[in-house]
């Protein structure tokens, strides 16, 4: 196999990965009132990691992100289930959620919802599952 000559791809992807990760965080925190949420935030995070896989190869990315993504998926599902059970401990229904207005130092008057904790679990589950699938079927072993 001949040597790859992909200077342009490497240079562009170094900037694009940062933009995609920032956009995924924006999508994650803009749930509830506007399009976004845990699922699509996790999927765009996976898009950034897939771009890294395409450019740098699977070994280098696995060396630098030394996380077992099956465990990430399991931890995400556990977080989602336990935030649902937390509503039952307070005497409400399963997956009960509440929100309140809080005054934060930098952000000013902010609305904080407990559904964000559930969304963290959903995002971790989506990231773990998608990256496990991609690393399983994309490996050319």
């Amino acid at each position: 196999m001949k040597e790859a000559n992909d200077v342009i791809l490497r240079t562009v992807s170094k900037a694009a990965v940062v933009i995609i990760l920032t956009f995924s965080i924006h999508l994650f925190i803009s749930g509830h009132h506007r399009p976004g949420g845990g699922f699509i935030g996790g999927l765009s995070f996976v898009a950034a990691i897939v771009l890294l896989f395409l450019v740098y190869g699977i070994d280098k990315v696995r060396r630098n992100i030394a996380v077992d993504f099956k465990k990430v998926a399991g931890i995400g599902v556990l977080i989602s289930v336990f935030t649902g059970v937390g509503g039952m401990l307070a005497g409400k229904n399963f997956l009960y959620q509440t929100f309140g207005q809080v005054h934060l130092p930098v952000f000013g008057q902010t609305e904080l919802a407990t559904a964000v904790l559930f969304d963290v679990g959903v995002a971790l589950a989506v990231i773990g599952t998608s990256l496990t699938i991609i690393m399983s079927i994309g490996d050319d072993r």
Partner: protein
Amino acid sequence: MIKVMLYLSTGFVTLSILVSIYRLIKGPSTPERTQALDALGINMIAGMGVFSVILRSTAFFEVILLLGILSFIGTIALAKYMERGVVIERRSSD
């Protein structure tokens, strides 16, 4: 007047998307299909932009960004498949 222009441009962008889909299905070789997929993504972004101008809404900007990201990654994956024969390599060259 501007309304007519915007509606006409959505029509032409739709026509262009249809032509791209024809080339995507019919195209005899892989490079033509890759080019058609890239043009399809760009035309979808353009149509979404014109649509959000018609509706005077900023709700579609995230859709535009996401379409751009996914089209970029898809084009890179197909181009790398044509160049190297494999999409995700185990070891990089350096």
